[in-house]
């Protein structure tokens, strides 16, 4: 592992883009700004690839803060994440060149986008927790800026703010985790923590608490139950943002964080149960909500939630490499799904309601193909990427407990359903929208008469992603097929080896076949079902799901409004505090007034007072 200055350079490249575009983006103009941003990300990708192939790299600035170095570490784990972030990030950048065409904030968009990549890279590469935290909040900031990219609309600004605040709840967990780990081990460097945790000599209960704090952080960032509420709203941002930040990369940072700290979580029954519970709840919640959405992006957003739940379950059952594997496959198919949605939106001049879509397979053949692959990968069709990673999760779940396997199987049925629902509503059937002619939109100026296929700059990234969604699964085949697959040993080298019993070959095969068959069946059933008129029970379900099962309302009633009310109350109280102090002042004044009354002006009173004082003084002074 080499100590090299090229490592911070990986981060510096997109950061440079942020600065240049931020300061003089307007002058660079369109599309040069977009290409500049994209190329810088590509540069990071290539640089990272080179370093990774050389066996990783480190870079340290000692005593950045007392006892805390500023250290970066490129190992296999962060390397894989770097490939995903910079690679998929690059594709989305390129795609956005087409998508953001004509937006007045074009260069601003790419400047933020580069900022995001930089922050995400810091998060991934950071080896010291405060450095990770810089990235952690940095991506939060970038997400805030991008969700509120069209801040002129109140709802967008509100969503951005909500995302930031909810994320900060998670950040508090992260901070407390740092505090606890520091007080336990006196270091915040992850590589040192690994050693110290192995060395022992501490209370395991405390370590569990540290893991719990980290989990809170991860829940916030990955929008798990109960902090899911910000993610659907985050769709207010431009579609590339949703694809990059809220599907492929940032939201998986929570999973990454947990995997990075597998050495803390591993073997802790309480945390495992908690993580599995959280993941499972999120998987179901996301899936069910997705089934009720009409907004094309919100559909996909909830599917992301559901998939994130899968990843959490993977972490919970101890399948750390699987969680990362799923991140990789998910990055491809979910980015593809979002960008397909984006292409459709683009084609329809900004229309996002799926009830106004349908039949797009005729108008947008290439996009349709992307959509199809994304659906199948997401729905878990053999042998696309999503199948293999999901299957691995299921296998590990079976190991954890057959009941979990059953539940997860149910969740994957839902996954198949929502994927196919999205596909059917968008691409199948007949076009339900009003004639697109005459509709103009800021994002697609001079609306076309016809839903039109996207330009090449948007198609090619999707082609590549489609390739990924088809192929990346093969690097993580189950052991019964490929005894030594690529990714497991590769990641285990960085995550740490937590050996476990493999399932018997027969069981494994049975599980694979069941999940494959179930997926196919669910996809087929869904394909038929969603073309029909919906039955009444589904309508009722849909109404509740559309509102996210009223999670926002509950939060508003239970938390947000009381907090605001209390703020008002405290504000008045604080004024009262000052009044209280002022009251003390007037009390003094009153006392003074009374005392001054003693100066009655009557001479004989004075004489009496004087003599009385004299007597008292004498009496007390002499007799004392």
């Amino acid at each position, binding site marked *: 592992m080499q100590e090299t200055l090229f490592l911070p350079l990986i981060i510096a490249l997109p950061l440079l883009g942020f600065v240049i575009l931020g300061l003089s983006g307007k002058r660079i103009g369109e599309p040069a700004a977009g290409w500049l941003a994209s190329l810088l990300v590509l540069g990071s990708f290539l640089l990272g690839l080179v370093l990774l192939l050389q066996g990783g790299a480190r870079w340290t600035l000692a005593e950045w803060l007392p006892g805390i170095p500023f250290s970066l570490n490129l190992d296999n784990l962060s390397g894989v994440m770097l490939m995903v972030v910079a690679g998929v990030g690059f594709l989305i950048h390129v795609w956005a060149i087409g998508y953001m065409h004509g937006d007045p904030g074009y260069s601003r968009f790419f400047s933020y986008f580069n900022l995001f990549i930089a922050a995400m890279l810091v998060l991934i590469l950071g080896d010291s927790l405060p450095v990770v935290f810089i990235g952690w909040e940095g991506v939060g900031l970038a997400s805030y800026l991008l969700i509120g990219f069209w801040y002129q609309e109140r709802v967008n600004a509100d969503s951005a703010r909500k995302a930031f605040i909810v994320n900060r709840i998670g950040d508090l967990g992260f901070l407390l985790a740092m505090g606890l780990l520091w007080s336990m081990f006196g270091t915040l460097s992850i590589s040192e923590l690994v050693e110290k945790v192995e060395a022992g000599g501490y209370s395991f209960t405390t370590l569990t608490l540290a893991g719990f704090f980290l989990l809170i952080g991860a829940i916030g960032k990955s929008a798990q139950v109960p902090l899911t509420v910000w993610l659907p709203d985050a769709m207010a941002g431009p579609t590339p943002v949703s694809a990059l930040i809220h599907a492929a990369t940032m939201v998986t940072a929570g999973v990454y964080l947990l995997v990075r700290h597998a050495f803390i979580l591993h073997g802790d029954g309480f945390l495992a149960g908690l993580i599995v519970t959280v993941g499972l709840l999120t998987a179901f919640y996301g899936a069910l909500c997705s089934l009720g959405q009409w907004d094309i992006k919100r559909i996909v957003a909830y599917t992301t939630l559901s998939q994130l739940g899968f990843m959490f379950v993977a972490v919970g059952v101890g399948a750390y490499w699987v969680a990362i594997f799923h991140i990789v496959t998910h990055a491809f198919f979910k980015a593809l799904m979002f960008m397909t949605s984006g292409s459709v939106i683009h084609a329809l001049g900004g229309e996002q309601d799926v009830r106004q879509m349908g039949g797009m397979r005729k108008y947008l053949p290439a996009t349709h193909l992307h959509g199809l692959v994304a659906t199948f990968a997401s729905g878990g069709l053999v042998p696309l990427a999503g199948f293999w990673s999901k299957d691995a999760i299921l296998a590990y779940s079976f190991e954890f407990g057959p009941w979990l396997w059953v539940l997860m199987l149910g969740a994957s049925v839902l996954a198949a359903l929502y994927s196919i629902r999205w596909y059917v509503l968008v691409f199948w059937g007949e076009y339900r929208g009003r004639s697109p002619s005459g509709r103009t939109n800021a994002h697609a100026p001079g609306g076309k008469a016809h839903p039109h296929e996207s330009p090449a700059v948007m198609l090619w990234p999707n082609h590549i992603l489609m390739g990924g969604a088809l192929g990346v699964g093969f690097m993580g085949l189950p052991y019964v097929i490929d005894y030594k697959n690529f990714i497991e040993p590769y990641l285990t080298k960085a995550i740490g080896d937590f050996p476990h019993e493999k399932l018997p070959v027969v069981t494994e095969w049975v599980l694979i076949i069941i999940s494959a068959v179930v997926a196919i069946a669910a996809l087929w059933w869904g394909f038929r079902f969603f073309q029909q008129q919906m039955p009444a029970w589904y309508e009722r379900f849909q109404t509740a799901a559309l509102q996210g099962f009223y999670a926002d309302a509950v939060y508003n009633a239970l938390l947000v409004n009381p907090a605001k009310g209390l703020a008002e109350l405290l504000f008045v109280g604080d004024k009262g505090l000052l009044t209280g102090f002022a009251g003390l002042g007037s009390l003094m004044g009153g006392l003074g007034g009374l005392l*001054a*009354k003693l*100066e*009655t*002006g*009557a*001479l*004989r009173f004075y*004489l*009496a007072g004087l*003599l009385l004082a004299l007597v008292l003084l004498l009496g007390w002074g002499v007799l004392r």
Partner: protein
Amino acid sequence: MIWLIASALLFSMGAYGALTRRTAILVFLSIELMLNAAALSLISFSRLYGSLDGQVVVLFIIAIAAAEVAVGLGLIVAIFRRRETTSVDELRQLRG
């Protein structure tokens, strides 16, 4: 000793007088009485110690009393001319 008690009594009488009289002149006279009480006790102490110091001081006291009378009476007379009264109870403009 007896003279000391006498002087203390004299002092108290003066004080009493100063408190109960309303006319400025009488108040002032009462206070002069207190001066004399001091003089009386000085003399008795002087005899006690057998030194003349105290007695000399008494002479000074007499002079002081005279000076005070000169100033005081002048003052009181001036007030009487203006207000036609010397009652101290009516002087209550300055207060608070």
